[in-house]
């Protein structure tokens, strides 16, 4: 395959390969545009984008979730970079988007959004605007709601080894996450600026 760090232009073959890798969520022009962007960000043409290079984008650096987002995107090769971004293309399904969000929230990558994951995320989101106590209360209440949900629907028990206590137990599974997010209709969507040429 021609996707070495030094290749300047993608061949049709390369584009198709990337397209396949990200499930056809981007068309070939979008992939070419992303490739150009990838090469701009990857300043020394290493073949991946480092955390430092990501954080040098001020618009990203000021994001409350910047530390998490950079962790998800750093050190990916171009194919995987596209695959992660594909979750937010307008051709992506709701499921893809939820999966991406779940991966961002699952800080320790154990397949559950655990108590500590949730705490980390909420702290990133609110910063110093809420005190320790308020953050604690938000999370305690959220866990209460989770317990309610588990009683009502019984989802998540299977993957949880029966540890689902009123606390988060092993954490929120993806199935539970999907149920919780049922009411959220606006999920992240991004457009690749392909230009008019």
């Amino acid at each position, binding site marked *: 395959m021609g996707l070495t760090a030094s290749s300047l232009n993608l061949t049709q073959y390369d584009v198709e390969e990337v397209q396949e890798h990200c499930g056809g969520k981007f068309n070939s022009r979008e992939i070419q545009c992303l490739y150009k962007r990838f090469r701009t960000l990857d300043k020394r043409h290493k073949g991946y984008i480092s955390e430092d290079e990501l954080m040098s*984008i*001020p618009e990203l650096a000021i994001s409350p979730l*910047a530390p998490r*987002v950079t962790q998800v995107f750093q050190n990916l090769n171009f194919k995987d970079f596209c695959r992660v971004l594909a979750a937010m293309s307008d051709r992506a399904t709701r499921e893809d988007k939820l999966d991406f969000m779940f991966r961002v929230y699952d800080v320790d990558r154990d397949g559950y959004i655990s108590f500590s994951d949730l705490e980390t995320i909420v702290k990133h*989101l609110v910063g110093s605007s809420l005190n320790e106590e308020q953050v604690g209360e938000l999370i305690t209440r959220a866990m209460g709601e989770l317990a309610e949900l588990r009683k009502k629907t019984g989802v998540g028990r299977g993957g949880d080894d029966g540890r689902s206590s009123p606390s988060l137990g092993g954490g929120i599974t993806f199935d539970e996450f999907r149920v919780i997010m049922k009411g959220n209709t606006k999920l992240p969507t991004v457009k690749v600026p392909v230009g008019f040429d």
Partner: protein
Amino acid sequence: MPKDSPGKGIGEDEFFAAESTRASEEVERVTSGIELEREASKTFGSDTAILPRLLDASGVLQDAASAIIDDTFNACFAFSDNTAWNWNFYLFPLWCFGVALRYLVLFPIRLAWIVTCTLLFILFFTIIHNVTRGKLRANLERDLVHLYAACFVISWTGVIKYHGPKPTQRSGHVYVANHTSIIDYIVLTQVTPFSSIAQQNKGWVGFIQNTAMDAIHCIRFNRTESKDREMVQRRLREHVANPDRLPLLIFPEGTCVNNEYCVMFKKGAFDLGCKVCPIAIKYNKIFAETFWHSRRMSFTTYLLKLMTSWAVVADVWYMEPQEMGPDEDSIQFAERVRGMICERAGIKPVPWDGMLKYYRPSPKMTEKRRAQIASNLVKLLPPKDGHLD
């Protein structure tokens, strides 16, 4: 004509934090995800479930991902990509002929011209500097710099249209312009000699700074020296107040931008309590890329690039002097003047400080967004006294 240098001095952080607070309001323009959050909180209405709200950072994630795909800050320092037009059997010979003409005919002539001019400049400058005294010396030196700038413009076949009344020498005025390269200064000086404020450069540019530019009272500073900042402010005020000095030209962006965008204006030039005359400069990049990326190429390489191009085509607009409004502070004033320049030159204003090339954005900019999220979440918590859990 500031040159970029990745220096970091003491006190730079506080300085930077103060400068960036004003940008945070504008940042809202680039964080469209805030809109998403507002809509989300509307659709939830009276629903007080906390979990779905905690787990929904769609707006934040959307902004972050959009920034990865495209961002306006890096766009400020990107070279324009001219699509190749020469790969065509009847255009290609024509293009080859053009290359030969530019490199083998135009370039040697131009190089000979600018070398001769430089030698003559040094010769006359030395004579004037050592023989004459006082007001006469100042005038002659100014005229010499004026001529030398014109020589430079000729060396890249500058085709520059000037619109509006020519600036004149008088006190109480400061000129501000958008900044693409050192040649901005040369292009403006060939019409009216200006004093300017610049980062101390090295090499032959530094040499010219130390001799000729000093003679016309240009202010030099070192970005890495934090105490220089006060000295510069003081000297700027003195300069503007003195009617014998040349008009002062400041590039408030503080760094070279590619002439498609305009980064934040530093407020220093707008704090002097005098009238500000905006100058808009727009280069036509058909014949030459005029953006100088000071980290990627030396000024010499840059000049050689210009001298092997067909021509430098530009428009310069001198605009009406502006005064700070009664209910404006220097920051708002700077913003207003920047708006005028951007509109005139047809370039896009972005909310970023050009210094973000060297520093990470201040955490204050993040905190504002966080406060917004927090205020949405805290509404979900019941009032303290009614809470019985």
